[in-house]
Every structure is written in C-alpha cells, then in structure tokens.
C-alpha cells in the first residue's frame, strides 16, 4: 500500500477538524499535568500518549480517509467489417467472380486463412451490411446476402460506428456517398472490389426535361450520357413515345470514361400527358443494360386555345362573341366574316376593297389540325365549302377537335347540312318544316342536365345575386337563366338521342337551345340562336355587367376543347416523382363550383402498377376544402395509372416512376475508396497486399488499455478499530494497575 493511494474526503471542514484536534491535544496536556502529580512524569507521559493516540484516531475519522487501489487491463480491439450490399455490388467482380458481393464473401470466408475467422481470433469482430442504412449481420447470414437497394451514405454510417470500434474495414466497389468529412475517430481501411479497367457500360446519367411543355412549341431535352470502355463509338440516342420514334441524335464517344450531352428536340402536336422514353441501344459487352433507357413524363398543354370562327355575315352575335373570345388572353382567335356573297355587287376597283379571299383549302385541309375549336356562326357553307372540306371537319372532330354551330336564319333549309358530314357530327336534327322562328320572344330555362353540366353550371359569384341567399345553389342557377332576356329568333331543332340538352325554350314547346354531345374523340355544341348577344346586353341593361355572358362563352370554349381547367377534379403530380421504393404523394383538388357537398365526400383514389394490377394506395383530406392527398408506394419502375373518381366525374393521369437500376452508374469507383481512407486516417489496400497483416498492423495501433480503480474506506477496515480500542484498553489497564480506577 502506498501513501499516494490514500485519499481523504473530510466530512467536516478542515478548520473544524483542526479545532477538535487542538481541543483534544489541550485536554491531554491538562490530563498529563494532573497525572504527573500523582503518578510521576514517565507514567503520566505514557497514559497521556495513549489518550492522545486514541483521540487522534477518533478525530481522524472526520477526515474520512480512503484506500485507492489501481489495476491496469488490456482491451481486445473491436473491428467493424463493413460490407457494401448496394445494387452496384451485384455487378461482375474480378474475373472468376459472379459479382462484387461474391468477391467480398470469398475474401472473408474462403482460402487457407479466411479473413473473417483470422480476425475473430484476435479481435472483437462485428459484421455490418452497408446499403441504404447500416445493418448488423451474423456470420451465418453472409452466404445469403444479396446486392440490392440504393447506395448508402458512409459519412452518416461513420457517425453510428464511431466510439464503438477501433477500426473499420470497408469492402466496397466505391459506389458510396461520402461527403469528405475529415474525421480521425475511426480509421477506415478500404478493400476495393471489382475492376474498373475491365468495366464496360453506357448509361444515361441525367435527363434535363421540362415537366410542362406547350403544344406546337419546340421542347429541348438534354441527355447526359456516361460511358466506360467505348472510345470512338458513335451512339444513337432515341426519343420515343411508346413505340413511335419522335427524334434521334448521334453522339460520339471520345474518351473512357467520358460524359457527353446530347440535346434532343421535338414539337409536341397534341395536348395531354406524354410518357416518353430516351434510350441508347445495347452495345456489345455492356455490363448493365437497364441503365440505357430512362422514362419520363411530360404534360403537354396548349399555350393558347386556337379557334377558327367563320361567320355567315356581320352581326351582333359575331361582334359579342368576338368580344368575349378576344377578351380572354388564353384564346387565339382567327375569324372570317362573309362580308359579301357572290350575289352582292362590288362597284369599286380592287384596291378600294378591304375584302380578302377566304382561304378554304389552306384552312380546312392544311391548317385545321392546328386549331382546337371550329365555330360556324350562322354560316351557310355551300357557296364556300365542298363536301371534302366537310369531311375534313368531321375527321378533325373525330380526332379530338371541338365544333360549335351557332344558329341563325342562314341555317334555314338546313343550311344544307343535312346528309353531310357536318349533319352527322351535329348533336341536332333540323325540324322538318319550319327551321327558324323570329320575333317570338322566347325565354330560356336550364334543363335537368344543364343544372349540373360544366358549361351552364356557372359559379355562384356569377349568378349568386339573382335570388336570396337562402336559396340553394341550383335554385340560384335556375333563377338566373329565367331572368335572362328573351331571344328574338331561334332555330327549331331536335336533339339527337345521344345529345344532351342544356338550355331549352321556356315558353310552349321546349325547343332545345343549347345542345352538346361527343363525337369520336371530340366534342360538339349547337347554340340554336343568333340572339345570344342579348344575354350580354340584357344583363348590362339590368346593371349586372357582362360577366355572365363572358363566363358562359369561356366555359363553352373550354368544354369544347377539353380544357383541364374545367375538369371538376384536378390532379397535381409531384415535381420530382422519385423512384421505386419511395412513397409518392399527389394532390387532388375538387372544384368548389362543380361539386356539391355530397359529391365531395364520395372521392376515391386508385393506382394501377405498370402491369395493370391495382396496388395499395391511401387518400386523406389535407384540411383545406376540397383538397386531398393521395399516396402510394411503387415497388418497381414504370408507368403508373392514377384514377380519381367522384360520383360526378373521374379523372385519370399517368406518371412515370424510375426503376431502381435506372441511371445506375455501377462502375467501380476506387478513387472514392482512396478518399475515404485518406480522410479517416485509414489505408487503401490493394489486393496484392497481405490483408490480415495490414489490418493487424492498424488494429494494434488502436489497441486499448484501461486502469481499474477500487476505493475502500480506511475506517471500514477492522484493524483500525482494533487499534483505537487498543489505545483505550492499554490506558485503562495501566490506570487500573496504578490505582487510578
């Protein structure tokens, strides 16, 4: 026992202990003087010494002395073996090994001195799989380990392991995320897998494409191509929609590895969701083919709604429709008004006329596809159009275009439309005898279908002030239409069975006034009057402005052109769709004015995977009125179909989810491993070095020692009490012997 191993922890302040000791010493001196008179100097000195000893020991209790014993121990170093299990490890390893993961397994478990076994004998070895996250694995799991999942973030993993291990041994091909953090807490010794020199691959590394494109405008898509081992090769980069080739571009590879960017451009000619693919044909000897193509989704919208309007003559109907259409900046209107017919005389030379030829050939054969909507306004065609033009119009509508026929006296005698392609697409038939009635002052009313149809279901801010606030939404709308000025003329039409009547005459026989139907992929409308402009001026006369007429025309145009803005259900896809295995959320919005509260509660969301199989999906309200959040977890890449249904309507969208191997750069990145080793104070080991020897060398540097310290109170030891009692007993003995007791 050494003195430096005794420590004190006073229970009282030191000054109090010194005071007590001084008092004890003083009382001993007093006792010595009293005893010296009776027993003599030497005996008194002996008894006083014994008393002082006992007092000293007792006062020393207050110092609380402890005995500290220390013992030094050696610690077995802990080594964390990090085995990269991300998807790139499934690529071919060194010759003879099916994959880099197999190469790693062989390194750990095969050979005369398997590395895992050898290390386990001298060290505490912990085995981890490094994928998207860190996972502890048992030795027996090693054989069944598979390469899958995204690459992990080594910097984050290092934080988990630091402090628990002496050394980390990383077996990887280098496809790991590493933020180059300079941390020496845990040295990482890296063992490279795979052979970068032998790796051959071409991959589409990145695609820069706008999520939204405008029909008729050029779209640029930048494709970054990375290649390993194909120097001097010229590659075709293909842009397809389904199996249809949109464009292609050749790109030359000048080095290995190298990155080149190819710009592909195309002009979308149809609106809607486009599911495109960019691909490069498989090359001989490529390690990975799945990264040669990328799917992308692009929404094509129209920059403007293009309308071709032909009016049979200048009229108020034309002017007010023109005002409404020109008032909307999203509409591009091209109109022709028949200012004179061949029967009208023109008594001035050419340079005094402002009339232009009616370019029917160009319009109805070449340019018709560039329009979204064709309007014939009180137009009698036979003087200008041939049956071939009408056939072209029918094909235009069948292919998805919109067609509106506005009535008027020029449609008398059927405007000769009966038995023509126009007669076929129109939602109406002409009544047999009388075709146009004038000066009868007929009012209009909403039909049952008109109450809920998007065209006539005007928003409450448009119609709301016509009746009291307590009335229901539909009552507002019915009253609004009843208040509209009567029409001075209308065509006597008969709706086809496939058509929907939205407005009808309110007096006498309910003649259809506004009729709609579908034809092929297009939509058709007939407005059986040339006096709809009275709905404009009638409301102005009442001091209610022109808003209702403008909204009606706007909704007619948008319904005819299938404008998504009129859909009662809106789906907003995320800007970045992510890839398989990541949850995807989409926003669903129901239009307030189109859905009653009952309909809002009947919303369903379903998702079909690329194989057409319905997968699990969720739907919950966001808290905002009419807004929902739909979610699903795609298990693989491809085109997913999303369907939102309400009792009134349904909407389908498709979206592309990237596959796991899409854009995968699986080339061994041994430079990355060198960086990791250098940053952490470890070492990058080449395969020619003796791995066990190198690892042991690093492990020894980190060999740990610790000192075990034990503390025991001196007063807890019996001999101390015996010693105190000894002083008192000896004193008592001599006092008795010398007659003091």
């Amino acid at each position: 026992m050494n003195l430096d191993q005794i420590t004190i922890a006073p229970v009282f302040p030191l000054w109090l202990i010194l005071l007590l000791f001084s008092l004890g010493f003083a009382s001993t001196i007093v006792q010595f003087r009293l005893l010296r008179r009776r027993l003599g100097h030497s005996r008194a000195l002996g008894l006083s010494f014994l008393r002082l000893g006992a007092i000293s020991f007792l006062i020393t209790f207050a110092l609380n002395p402890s005995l500290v014993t220390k013992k030094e121990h050696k610690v077995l170093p802990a080594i964390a073996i990090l085995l990269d299990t991300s998807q790139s490890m499934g690529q071919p390893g060194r010759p003879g090994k099916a994959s880099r993961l197999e190469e790693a397994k062989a390194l750990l478990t095969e050979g005369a001195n398997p590395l895992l076994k050898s290390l386990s004998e001298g060290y505490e070895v912990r085995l981890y799989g490094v994928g998207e996250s860190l996972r502890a694995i048992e030795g027996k799991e090693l054989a069944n380990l598979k390469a899958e999942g995204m690459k992990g973030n080594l910097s984050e993993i290092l934080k988990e392991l630091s402090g628990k291990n002496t050394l980390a041994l990383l077996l990887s091909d280098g496809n790991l995320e590493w933020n180059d953090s300079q941390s020496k807490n845990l040295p990482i010794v890296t063992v490279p897998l795979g052979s970068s020199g032998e790796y051959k691959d071409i991959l589409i590394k990145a695609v820069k494409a706008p999520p939204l494109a405008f029909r008729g405008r050029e779209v640029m898509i930048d494709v970054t191509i990375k290649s390993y081992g194909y120097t001097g090769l010229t590659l075709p980069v293909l842009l397809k929609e389904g199996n249809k080739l949109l464009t292609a571009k050749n790109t030359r590879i000048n080095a290995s590895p190298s990155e080149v960017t190819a710009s592909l451009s195309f002009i979308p000619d149809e609106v809607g969701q486009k599911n495109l693919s960019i691909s490069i044909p498989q090359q001989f000897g490529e390690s990975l083919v799945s990264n040669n193509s990328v799917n992308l989704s692009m929404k094509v919208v129209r920059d403007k709604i293009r309308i071709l309007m032909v009016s049979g003559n200048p009229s108020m109907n034309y002017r007010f429709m023109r005002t409404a259409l020109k008032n909307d900046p999203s509409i591009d209107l091209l109109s022709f008004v028949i200012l004179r017919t061949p029967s009208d005389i023109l008594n001035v030379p050419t340079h005094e006329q402002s009339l232009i030829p009616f370019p029917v050939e160009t319009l109805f054969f070449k340019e018709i596809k560039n329009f979204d909507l064709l309007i014939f306004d009180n137009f009698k065609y036979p003087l200008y159009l041939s049956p071939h033009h009408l056939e072209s119009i029918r094909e235009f509508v069948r292919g998805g275009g919109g067609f509106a026929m506005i009535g008027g006296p020029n449609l008398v005698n059927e405007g000769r439309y009966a038995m023509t392609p126009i007669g076929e697409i129109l939602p109406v038939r002409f009544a047999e005898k009388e075709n146009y009635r004038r000066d009868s002052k007929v009012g209009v009313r909403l039909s049952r279908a008109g109450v809920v149809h998007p065209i006539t279901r005007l928003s409450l801010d448009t119609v709301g002030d016509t009746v009291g606030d307590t009335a229901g939404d539909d009552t507002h709308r019915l009253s609004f239409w009843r208040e509209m000025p009567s029409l001075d003329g209308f065509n006597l039409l008969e709706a086809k069975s496939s058509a929907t009547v939205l407005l009808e005459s309110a007096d006498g026989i309910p003649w259809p006034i506004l009729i709609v139907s579908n034809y092929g992929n297009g939509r058709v409308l007939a407005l059986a009057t040339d006096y709809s402009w009275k709905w404009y001026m009638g409301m102005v006369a009442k001091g209610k402005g022109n808003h209702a007429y403008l909204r009606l025309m706007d909704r007619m145009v948008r319904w005819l052109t299938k404008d998504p803005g009129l859909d009662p259900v809106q789906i907003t896809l995320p800007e970045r769709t992510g890839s398989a295995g990541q949850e995807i959320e989409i926003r669903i919005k129901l239009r307030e004015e189109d859905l009653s509260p009952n309909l809002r509660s009947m919303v369903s969301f379903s998702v079909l995977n690329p194989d057409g199989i319905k997968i699990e999906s969720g739907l919950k309200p966001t808290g905002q009125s009419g807004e929902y959040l739909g979610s699903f977890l795609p298990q693989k890449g491809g085109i997913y179909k999303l369907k939102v249904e309400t009792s009134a309507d349904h909407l389908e969208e498709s979206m592309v989810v990237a596959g796991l191997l899409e854009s995968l750069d699986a080339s061994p990145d041994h430079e990355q491993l060198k960086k990791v080793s250098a940053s952490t104070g470890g070492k990058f080991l080449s395969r020619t070095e003796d791995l066990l020897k190198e690892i042991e060398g690093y492990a020894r540097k980190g060999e740990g020692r610790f000192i075990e310290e034990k503390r025991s109170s001196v007063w807890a030891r019996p001999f101390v009490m015996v010693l105190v009692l000894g002083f008192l007993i000896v004193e008592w003995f001599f006092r008795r012997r010398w007659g003091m007791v």
Partner: protein
Amino acid sequence: MKTSSFKSYNRRKFLSLGLGLAAGFFFSGPKSLLSASFPNFFFAQLKYRGGEWDPNPQFAEAIIEELELRTSIDGMKERRVTTLSDPDLFFCPFLYMAGKYEFDPFTPQERETLTRFLSYGGFLFAEDTMGAKGFGFDQAFRREMKQLFPDHELRRLASDHSVYQSFYIIGSVGGCQRVNPYLEGITIDNWTPVLYSQNDLSGAWARDRFGKWINECVPGGEVQRSGAFKLGINIIVYSLTSDYKKDVIHHPFIKRRQSL
C-alpha cells in the same frame, strides 16, 4: 345636277340589281327572301329634347338598300325611334343621333344609361348635319360626350382605323358637305363606341319617295355622295364586326391594296 344624279342612281341601281339577280341565280337563292324577314341590322334613331333631332327623316332607305346590295348584311329599311329611357335601348345594335341645333342637356339618369350602353358594347353614330364647328349641335354634343367620358376625348380617328377598312378602303371622307376630311371618335381600348361626323352623311343618303336625292352634295357632287355611301357601309360593318380588320391575317392584303 339633280337630273344627272338621278340618272346615275338609276343606272347604278339597274346594274346592281341585274348583277345581283344574275349572281343570285347562279350562287345563292334565298337571300332576297330572307332579307325582308330576318334583318340583322336597323337604325335606332335617338330622339332627344331640344334642337332638331330628325334633320334627315328619309335617310335610312337608300343606305339600307345599298347595304343589302353590296354586303351580306340584311337590313331593315324602317328606322326605329328610341329615347334614352327606352327599356329596349340596349337591344339596339346601332344608335344613330343627328341634329343641327343645340339640344337640352341629358338628365343624370340618361347620362348614366348612355354611358353604360356605350361602355358595355353599344354603338353610337352621331352627326352634326349643320356642320357648324363649335356651335349648335356640335357644341352640345361635345359637351355631353365630355360629361359621359371625362377620361376619353372625342378625337380625330387615324387613317388606319378599322372604320376606314371594314369593307371599303377609304381614303377620303364623303358626305353632303365637306366640313372635316375625317371622322372623330371616342376610343376605349380597341373599340370606338362613338363615331362623330360633321359632313352630314345622312343628308347625302336621303332620298324622296320618287327615288330622287333630296340634297345636293357640295362641293364634290356625286363622287362625294358615293363616298358618303361607302363610309356609311363601313360604319355599319364596323359596328357589327368591331376591329375585325385589325386581325393579323388582313394586314398583308390591306397593305398591298393600299399601295396599288
């Protein structure tokens, strides 16, 4: 002069009818039948207090005849007389106002109605048949327009205004008299709801029951009358088509013809 104009009129009328009938036979059958039954244009003449609201009572028939003869527009030869308190005022496509002398100011209610009518799509063609600048009708009309549109002045229309190109390409303005070689107007955005002339166009159009011109056109004679008809037709076409001739597709044609 009058005999000459009468002969001229008859000759033109004869030729027009002849061509029209021939063209109608070959190209279009039912127009003449429809024109009477389903007119889509008529004059609504504004009757106001004070002054003389109807200086040319017989102006409508001839211009409507010419309108039907030369254009695809079907018109009604009988004008309709209206006031600013007429509930059907807003359904009149073309409001016509004429006069010689100063008239009584409009009431606030009349001003509000006319402002609303013109601001939301209505159209007014007004003319000072006296042609006295700063006096009589001219003074009163300008006063009222200033009250109606304090932020928009009655200005001379540019030579490329749609009203000069809506049917004919017009270089010189006709009329019974030649006070101004231009039209004036109040333009709001791209639409001119008020047109104003001091050249007495209606005086040049007016014809008696025997088909004789009522007024002589000075100093240009029948050429000036012909110009008045052309401008009248252009004004009517403008009122029904707005700035249609400003559409891009018309530009190259009109420019080419103007350069001829």
